[in-house]
């Protein structure tokens, strides 16, 4: 049963990879990367049970944290074209961050 779950996760990873390779816009690729990170986390968790070592769950939890932070960083980059903008919107900032046009892909 766990093997079937692992195979299903591999198939899902393959689908995410197809979307990341052929995604027409950048947002497709970001979403594919984030979703693929989630699938990787699940896959490592399942892998621990397949190999009889459930302590892999700790590693997968840490991967979830890394995946979340890197997705936030990439989306912040897309939105503001910079990492140096605070995520909290201040009321009277001197330089208002410019909204990105988005969606362009070379």
């Amino acid at each position, binding site marked *: 049963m766990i093997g079937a779950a692992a195979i299903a996760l591999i198939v899902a990873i393959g689908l995410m990879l197809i979307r990341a390779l052929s995604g027409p816009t950048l947002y497709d690729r970001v979403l594919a990367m984030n979703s693929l990170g989630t699938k990787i986390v699940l*896959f490592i968790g399942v892998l621990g049970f397949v190999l*009889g*070592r459930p302590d892999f769950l700790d590693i997968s939890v*840490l991967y979830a944290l890394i995946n979340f932070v*890197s997705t936030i960083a*990439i989306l912040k980059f897309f939105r503001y074209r910079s990492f140096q903008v605070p995520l909290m919107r201040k009321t009277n900032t001197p330089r208002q961050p410019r909204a990105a046009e988005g969606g362009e*892909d070379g």
Partner: protein
Amino acid sequence: MTGYEGADLAIALINVVLLGLLFVVAIAIARMRSLFAIVMLSSIYSLISATWFVALDAVDVAFTEAAVGAGISTALLLGAMLLTSRTAKPEPRKFAIVPLLVCIATGLILVYATIDLPAFGDPDSPANTYVGTDYIERTPEEIGVPNIVTAVLASYRGFDTLGETGVVFSAALAVILLLGFGERSLSASIGRRKGGKE
């Protein structure tokens, strides 16, 4: 392995599937011209290779790969793209025979070198005969963590790891001091020079 009886076959299958995914991603990275897509794909590459390292039981390497490859270097590459353009220069596709031959020859030499390696898990191999057995015997009672690599890194060679951490920290500090943060940073000054664009 204490898993169910098909664990060896499962490991072999997982190795083949993950390496196949890595191969596809690497080919796509080499073919693409959009730098954003390449950064995304290199992050995906790091995630998948980290998974492969976990499957190979090299948990500490996998950890470094996930933190550095998927986390830090993605952010660094995106930050570097602030300073350059978005797409790579289109190159004329021409078939280069010499690099292909060099790659094939190097691969053949590496494959030939693996013939002399001891078999996987061979108890008479040099890695398993000298100090390794000592660590394996003494870790359960002296340190008491399940992963022996962790015990070696964090306890037996703890000062070594501490020194490495100090080196990496000072390198990161020097880079941050050179590039700067906030309004005075390199990317911000370039953004001002371009009149606020990008």
